[in-house]
């Protein structure tokens, strides 16, 4: 039985346990003189029986599915010829990949006849594993249901027990956030460590040359490649800086105007329109940057006699990215400017200051921590943005300070290194994870600093 149909059967058994549990509680109620002599409502008895049926079955099914491959593989390893047992890392993985391909019929001929023995053993074990899984899971579910059903007594505290179960489920759901973070850290850290075994850390962080494309696999001569990430960092920072140069002034002034000057009617029109700007998928911005903005910029600068403008310039990507994060900056600034108390403004007006003087000399200083943290968050977003740069910034890892040149960024390289089928343990693919680690670390730091700035420097006025 496949896992999905087994799962459906499991659900059916759980529903049946609910119905029987509920029925049993009603029958019991009759003997003691009615429902009101039960501890809980009949539904809770049914739910409790269902929980008894569901939890062990689902747990067993999940554990079995996760560990079955590992256990089966390790139990057939001894069938491999001696020479394969000494293999490590990628070579061993290749052997196993071939065996699994044989087993699934993707390959028809093995490079070593000994593999057929392993494949047969695998097939046998998998068949019995599937059989065992079906029987054991169903048996456990039914047993659990029966056990839950037998537990039903008028004085059983079914509601409290079921609520405990629910609470654990709720807790587990909120733990997923932590699991995600752990998952991210582990997936990038482990692969990065493997990468740093191949390429020394200082070479990666301080190297000036980035050309990973040649390093396809170890056998190709002269395939060392170059993994100096400085050009990527410079490219990323340049594009992010251009984006912030666009977004921060425009976003801030928009927020100031909307909060301090605009009538509520203007606000009610402009704000949703800005939100539209924020809701447009990044791939659309990328398309616009690559097909409209970049050629326009190129012809614009060539009109001034500037030669050698790349058709994939950092400027085009940065400008469009800047427009993209305007609403982000403006809505954060909007919040902090709004939070500056009325009394500060009134005091400033009372001393004869104009509105703009009030904004510049009273509101900005008061809102500064919030604004700084908003800018940091915007920077983190600009650094992590992928699609615009993938489509508009190009792949050439130039170490340049000229925004009209093509540059590449960390995210572009992660995307291009990992798209398509690749051998998963070449330095080339692992480099993507090392870059991912850098990206995760930097954006995390920016967030933490942004939060810390607000916490440390915010002034309480009320």
């Amino acid at each position, binding site marked *: 039985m496949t896992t999905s149909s087994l799962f459906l059967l499991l659900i059916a058994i759980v529903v049946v346990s609910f119905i029987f549990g509920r029925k049993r509680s009603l029958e019991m109620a009759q003997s003691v003189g009615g429902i009101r002599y039960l501890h809980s409502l009949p539904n809770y008895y049914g739910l409790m029986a269902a929980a008894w049926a569901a939890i062990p079955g689902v747990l067993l099914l999940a554990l079995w599915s996760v560990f079955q491959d590992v256990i089966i593989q390790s139990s057939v390893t001894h069938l491999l010829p001696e020479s394969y047992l000494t293999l490590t890392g990628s070579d061993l993985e290749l052997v196993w990949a071939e065996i699994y391909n044989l087993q699934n019929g993707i390959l028809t001929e093995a490079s070593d006849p000994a593999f057929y023995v392993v494949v047969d053993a695998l097939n046998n074990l998998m068949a019995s594993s599937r059989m065992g899984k079906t029987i054991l899971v169903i048996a456990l579910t039914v047993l659990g249901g029966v056990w839950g059903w037998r537990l039903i007594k008028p004085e059983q505290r079914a509601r409290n027990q079921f609520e405990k179960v629910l609470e654990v489920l709720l807790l587990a759901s909120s733990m997923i956030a932590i699991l995600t973070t752990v998952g991210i850290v582990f997936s990038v850290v482990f692969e990065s460590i493997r990468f740093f075994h191949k390429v020394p850390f200082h070479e990666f962080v301080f190297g000036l040359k980035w050309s990973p494309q040649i390093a396809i696999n170890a056998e190709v001569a002269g395939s060392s490649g170059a993994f100096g990430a400085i050009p990527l960092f410079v490219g990323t920072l340049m594009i992010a800086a251009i984006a912030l140069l666009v977004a921060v002034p425009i976003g801030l002034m928009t927020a100031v105007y909307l909060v301090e000057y605009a009538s509520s009617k203007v606000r009610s029109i402009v704000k949703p329109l800005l939100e539209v700007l924020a809701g447009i998928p990044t791939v659309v911005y990328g*398309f616009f940057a690559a097909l409209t903005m970049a050629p326009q910029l190129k012809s614009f600068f060539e009109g001034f006699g500037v030669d050698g403008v790349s058709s994939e310039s950092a400027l085009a990507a940065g400008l469009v990215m800047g427009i993209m994060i305007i609403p982000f900056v403006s809505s954060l600034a909007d919040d902090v400017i709004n939070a500056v108390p009325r009394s500060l403004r009134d005091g400033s007006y009372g001393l004869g200051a104009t509105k703009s003087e009030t904004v510049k000399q009273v509101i900005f200083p008061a809102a500064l921590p919030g604004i700084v943290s908003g800018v940091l968050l915007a920077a983190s977003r600009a650094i992590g943005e992928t699609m615009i740069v993938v489509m508009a910034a190009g792949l050439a890892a130039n170490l340049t300070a000229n925004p009209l040149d093509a540059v590449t960024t960390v995210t572009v390289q992660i995307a291009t290194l990992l798209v398509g089928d690749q051998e998963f343990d070449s330095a080339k693919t692992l480099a993507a994870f090392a870059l991912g680690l850098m990206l995760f670390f930097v954006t995390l730091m920016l967030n933490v600093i942004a939060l810390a700035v607000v916490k440390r420097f915010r002034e309480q006025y009320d």
Partner: protein
Amino acid sequence: MTDQSMNAIERLAETKNERMAKNLTKRYAKEKRFQAYGIASICIGMAFLALLLGTIFYGGTSSFITTEIKLTINYDADVIGVTDLTDEEELAWADWRGLLTTSLAERFPDVSGRQQVRQRNALISSIAEYEIRDRLLAHPELLGTTEELWIVADDEIDAVMKGQVDRTVAESERRITDLQLAMIDDLKESGDIKKKFNTIFFTAGDSREPEQAGIRGAMIGSFYTLLVTLMLSFPIGVAAAIYLEEFAPKNRFTEIIEVNINNLAAVPSIVFGLLGLAVFINLFHLPRSAPVVGGLVLTLMTLPTIIISSRSAIKAVPPSIREAALGLGASKMQMVMHHVLPLAMPGMLTGTIIGMAQALGETAPLLMIGMVAFIADVPNGALDPATVLPVQVYLWSDLPERAFVAKTSGAIMVLLGFLAVMNLLAVYLRKKFEKTW
């Protein structure tokens, strides 16, 4: 006090007034300027929005229209080389293209030489033959008869019909020849060429031929991906929000969870793609390019959004309702499940729809898990290889044919249409169920 000193004071006062007046005009000018900066910033933002949408709509509308040519098709068994339509082996060798080329030859008889014949045959789409095949296989009785059919034209012909080709350019500079232009004019005169609504765009999967490429595969892929995302992220997000808002004790552990959720909301989306690649594909061996994996990754990505908005929806339920429920003897769980949750549901749904809209527009993490492969088939389930709308946009934007630029814009319009509907729905829900207690 002497007159002279009076004068001095008056003079002083006068100059001070003058100075102040001057200063004041300067300050007012500054004020005006400052305000103008504000208006300019808003205008820049709005102008860009208009420019962006304008370019896309201007370029994209033509993708909803296609060109067809009327041809008289003679289903001649000799031309196809098939005598028995049920014989699989014979069908493998059938020459469906021949039907079209003979029909074209009949329509334009005075064409000679290899080059000219090739140009003539290039009038119609290179995939039109499969339509003929499907039609004949569906109606075997047509064999040996003649009928008039509208055949999809090649994308270059389509471009001519849409006025995108400059006829004044020298022949060698354009991709369409003078002979072909003459043929098009001839067809136009006899009314055998027409523009019509492009149904292929909505009913076909991806294709390398622009006139045959559609977004159906991507739309279905997006649908399955979002379905998986919704089924996982909504219950988990709501459950997490309930726990954090109603049950969590205030201690270090729950604080860690909260910090975690806020941090996850700011992690770049491509990092989630790395997680998906390393954990779901390499560790759990889930299929590459499948909507299931895409859905799982997007679930992790949208969870923070849903949790944060669900929490604020729960917070908005007034304590009096909780107290009333507790006062009538409900347990805490009953209070939450029977009273708080239904009242907070509209707010949670709004947050979920916004999260789904985010997931629909997301591209980068899906590139990592292999949803960028060229897939011509429409997926039949969440385990089939598929692509999604934004990735389709990305794929098409890379292709050199001019027709694909319009296709890309067209796909973007469809994507933006879905996003607009989702966001309007969220706004409507918020307006409709917004309660002030």
